[in-house]
């Protein structure tokens, strides 16, 4: 750690991991409800568990991005953070707001929560992933503005690098596109159209800038390859990302009442979306092969390589699988979508945040890298979680293919619930893969508490 103020990243990383645990626990509850329908009903209905599962994911990834930015920006700018106090204050505001929101989901009926929190003033709730009460959404905007002010001031006063510029572009884009969550037209088609301005332009747009910047930063540190080379790659990757991904939004506009020309725009451009992810994989392996130093933190390098591969598989390959309009006609809104969502989020965003935590946390704790034993245990967690996620994805894909066949392709289509009964075997296997994932997550947390004897000083 070169600058004192980088230490503010630590609470963000710890809270992110805590919320990750909550996310996975609620995922296990939902997985069980898929096969034992009345499990925990009416205490935790499926929709409540799902809100906690998806919202916890979003918040912990945001926490991870913020922690990463607070660590990365001072080092890139070669100066202390503009205001470490503001960063810490915003951390507590964000954490308390997230905790209160989750408690609201769990303890209050959703309709009452909406009434209590001013949804009648400006109805924004009850849309997928944007379920947060109005006051939480306003809180997110305030935290984001404070965070961006703090970082932008730091960058403006310090050295400007491609990495910090791309990171800031991504983070500003994140905040700006979130503003569409306040726009909820009565017209369902227009509601859905602009809803994707948040959801798609986040995960297949500006978030990939954040991903690219974090990955580039860690690769410079662990490989010692010239900044010039890495920054050139970064620009190429994010160029490919945005020229395919922006118009690629069209792959959500096939069947929601929008005009049919979107089937062409969406199919052609989103078919190209795997290219930047493939470039990212090539980039990560290329840089590690050309490394000029043997960094003692080997597990961070493993996570960085894993991010490239799994983002390509989850976002690239599994996205391509159902992105062409004639295919999507059958797969839209099936378990195929769920399969893709799981591996893409894990491969791209979960893994890049863990890459950064894996690299930065030992430094924040005063050593260049963890002991060999701690690293080996963290590597076990890498393989357990990653392989479990591959199987979750494969089982959901199998369930999805059967679902599409029985319910949509067959000459004598079955009803939704009759189809679900037919594919429950795959839901059971997915749940067991989820248990393995949870064991991997526990192993990951255990790795932080392993001391070992060969700890090197920073």
């Amino acid at each position, binding site marked *: 750690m070169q600058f004192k103020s980088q230490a503010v990243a630590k609470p963000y990383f710890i809270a992110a991991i805590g919320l990750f645990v909550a996310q996975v626990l609620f995922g296990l509850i*939902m997985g069980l*409800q898929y096969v*034992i*329908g*009345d499990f925990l*009903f*009416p205490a935790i*209905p*499926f*929709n*409540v568990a*799902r*809100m906690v599962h998806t919202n916890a994911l979003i918040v912990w990834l945001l926490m991870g991005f913020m922690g990463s930015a607070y660590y990365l920006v001072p080092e890139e700018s070669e100066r202390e953070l503009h205001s470490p106090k503001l960063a810490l204050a915003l951390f507590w505001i964000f954490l308390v707001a997230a905790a209160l929101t989750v408690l609201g989901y769990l303890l209050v009926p*959703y*309709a009452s929560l909406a*009434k209590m929190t001013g949804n009648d003033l400006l*109805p924004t*709730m*009850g*849309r*997928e992933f944007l*379920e947060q009460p109005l006051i939480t959404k306003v809180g997110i905007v305030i935290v984001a503005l404070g965070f961006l002010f703090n970082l932008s001031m730091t960058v403006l006063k310090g050295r400007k690098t*491609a990495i910090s510029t791309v990171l800031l572009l991504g983070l500003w884009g994140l905040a700006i596109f979130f503003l569409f969550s306040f726009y909820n037209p*009565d*017209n*369902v088609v*227009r509601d*859905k*159209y602009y809803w994707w301005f948040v959801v798609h332009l986040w995960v297949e747009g500006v978030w990939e800038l954040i991903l690219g910047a974090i990955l580039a930063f860690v690769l410079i540190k662990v490989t010692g390859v010239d900044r010039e080379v890495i*920054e*050139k790659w970064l620009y*190429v990757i994010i*160029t490919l990302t*945005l*020229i395919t991904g*922006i*118009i690629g939004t*069209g792959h*959500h506009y*096939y*069947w*929601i*009442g*929008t*005009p049919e020309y*979107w*089937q062409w*725009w969406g199919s052609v451009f989103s078919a190209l979306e795997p290219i930047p992810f493939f470039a990212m994989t090539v980039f990560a392996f290329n840089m590690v092969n050309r490394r000029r130093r043997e960094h003692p933190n080997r597990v961070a390098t493993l996570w960085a390589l894993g991010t490239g591969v799994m983002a390509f598989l989850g976002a690239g390959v599994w996205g391509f699988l159902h992105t062409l309009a004639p295919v999507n*006609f*059958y797969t*839209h*809104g099936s*378990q195929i979508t*769920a399969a893709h969502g799981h591996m893409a989020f894990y491969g791209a965003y979960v893994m890049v945040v863990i890459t950064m935590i894996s690299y930065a946390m030992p430094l924040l704790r005063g050593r260049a890298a963890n002991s060999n034993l701690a690293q080996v245990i963290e590597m076990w967690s890498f393989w357990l979680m990653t392989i479990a996620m591959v199987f979750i994805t494969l089982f959901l894909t199998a369930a999805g293919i059967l679902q599409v066949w029985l*319910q*949509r392709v067959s000459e004598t289509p*079955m009803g*939704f*619930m009759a*189809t679900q009964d037919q594919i429950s075997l795959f839901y059971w296997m997915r749940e067991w893969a989820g248990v393995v994932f949870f064991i991997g997550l526990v192993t990951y947390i255990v790795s932080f508490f392993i001391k070992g004897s060969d700890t090197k000083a920073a």
Partner: protein
Amino acid sequence: MSSAFTTSAARNIFYGGTVFFFLLFLALTYQNEKALPARDNRANLTPQVIAGKKIWETRNCIGCHTLLGEGAYFAPELGNVYKRRGGDKGGAEFIKAWIKAQPTGAPGRRQMPQFNLTEQELDEMVAFLKYVSEINTSNWPPNIEG
């Protein structure tokens, strides 16, 4: 990558490409707004339908169901439920009776909560689902089962 291709060239391509495709996206969005009135059934967007949409949202229906294929995959697609359950010949009665009968309490089966909707709110909910079922979705879903 060759040395002729510099970082600043890469940066310029990034900014140029991003601006170009973002403007193209805005142009398509403008065109989209122009084309929507012919497809989105806005003529039937009555106050009752709008009230129904709010009930849809404040009960978090999307947390289990899909609507035009978007949402959760735990419970049936509802974009075409009005037509699936009889359309103008009984669709409304079926949906209202179904919502009132929840949860079924059948052991081991997926359960839908009881929302205690009034008769007026049930009618609004049905009006909303009827309006959605009449949006032109390019013949999606492939069949009535959703």
